[in-house]
């Protein structure tokens, strides 16, 4: 295994711990927006989709797979963030 892979494992491990610490502090009332918000973040697979779709060979299958991946991941990202924002704007305190 190359050093780069070990380095990425390092990042992975620390990010998991960071995630656990951050999310533990989210109150129950925000669990649905948290879920749809983190769901939008998982649309980061879009980056992978962009890289494979943009660098691919020109076979039809490759193009179809690449474009589909880009489309689906974009729906995930855009839809996820928008709907989270829509929900969060409804969380109000009285008198404000």
């Amino acid at each position, binding site marked *: 295994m190359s050093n780069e892979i070990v380095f990425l494992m390092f990042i992975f491990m620390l990010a998991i711990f960071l995630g656990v610490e951050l999310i533990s502090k989210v109150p129950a009332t925000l669990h649905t927006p948290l879920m749809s*918000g983190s769901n939008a973040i998982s649309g980061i697979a879009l980056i992978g989709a962009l890289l494979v779709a*943009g660098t691919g060979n020109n076979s039809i299958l490759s193009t179809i797979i690449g474009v589909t991946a880009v489309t689906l991941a974009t729906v995930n990202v855009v839809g996820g963030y928008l709907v989270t*924002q829509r929900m969060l704007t409804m969380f109000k305190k009285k008198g404000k």
Partner: protein
Amino acid sequence: MSTIIQVAYLIAAFFFAFGLKMMSSPSTARRGNLFSALGMLLTIVVTLLHQEIVQYQWILVGMVLGLLLGTIAAVRVPLTSMPELVAVFNGLGGLASLLVGWEAYNQQQHQLSWFLATTISLTILIGGLTFSGSMLAWAKLKGVKFKALELSQPLRFSGQQILNTLFLIGILILGISFSFEPQRNQLLLLGLIGGALLLGLTVVMPIGGADMPIVISLLNSYSGLAACTVGFVMLNNILIVAGALVGASGLILTNIMCKAMNRSLANVLFSGFGAVIDTAIGEKADQGEVRPVNTADAYLILEAASSVLIVPGYGMAVAQAQHSVRELGELLEANGAEVKYAIHPVAGRMPGHMNVLLAEANVSYDVLVEPEDVNPIMETVDVCMVIGANDVVNPDAKENEGSPIYGMPIIEVDRAKTVFVLKRSMASGFAGIQNPLFFKSNTRMLFGDAKESVSSVVAEFK
């Protein structure tokens, strides 16, 4: 160029983490979400500047299409359908990861290292099961039926666990042989894709409606892990960071949901409530008398109450009663009563489901409380209104050791001075267990549609 990209990824990782940190309070959560979105935008823009990307036209087509579909879905879908929407988005993310893994294989199949082959098979496995599992979860939430087959019911058969285990072993062997097989033919990969998709279905199939919050959380976690494995395929750090954050988030939610039901994850996945229902029913056939109440009498009791606790459940979502409930809450407050809403972590079909519905109806978030906040002061509550909740207020969880839900933390409404239970009929809850609360001497049943019942009480106030 690559340094600029890396620096941008670093900033984006900060935005993601900081955005999640701001989710810790409803007052900062909106900005947190914007931060996170900003991080995502930055990541996308700099990635597009990557010199290896040469085919922009197809990317543009995909992105514009995704932008349109995503926006329409996010704006159009009613908030009551939030669990379904989250399930669909989850599934799409999983499928996108699977496709990226597949395409990465297509492009590099001649110089595939064992590490790359392993990460690709993991991506396909997790992405595929996230996709098919989420789609089945969506169908269950939506209440899709195939003729006599109701998907929302847990589907079980004898030998299911053994079959699933064998199936999982088969897929693992397929994945391992794909990773180490010198030829690494496409057929093995297609088999892996098919296997992963089937696995998602068989995992979610035996899970019933009441366990949906756990499944949705778990699938959320998987969609993050799928993004993570894509990161290892492409050796891309931002994918790993973002994916890991989501994976951790889903795991924590899953854990919280399991704790709220006093069950282990294995218990939810392999032997849900369905297995124990039969033994629970019939044990105590005659539990006493039910005391119905009409809305006029309910009004009189509510009118005299100085503290009211509202306990919503999935039934409130089904009846769309949240606006009427908020109206009643406001009238009670105007009448001098203290009104709080007690929300059980697993009420509804996804974590925080009730909170979102009440927020939509304009209920202030500081009157939404958790079970451990209200249970100690339950004796001081004059009236508890249970609206469409059942299992989460079942006293059997504390009193009856033989009950399948024994040990589950509940909202102990039975200790309030008076309890109103708004219910359609005497049918049992999703767990299929009888609820002794309905027969207690301080309980009054208000039969009928939750929305109509609440509205007619509201009408009495006016």
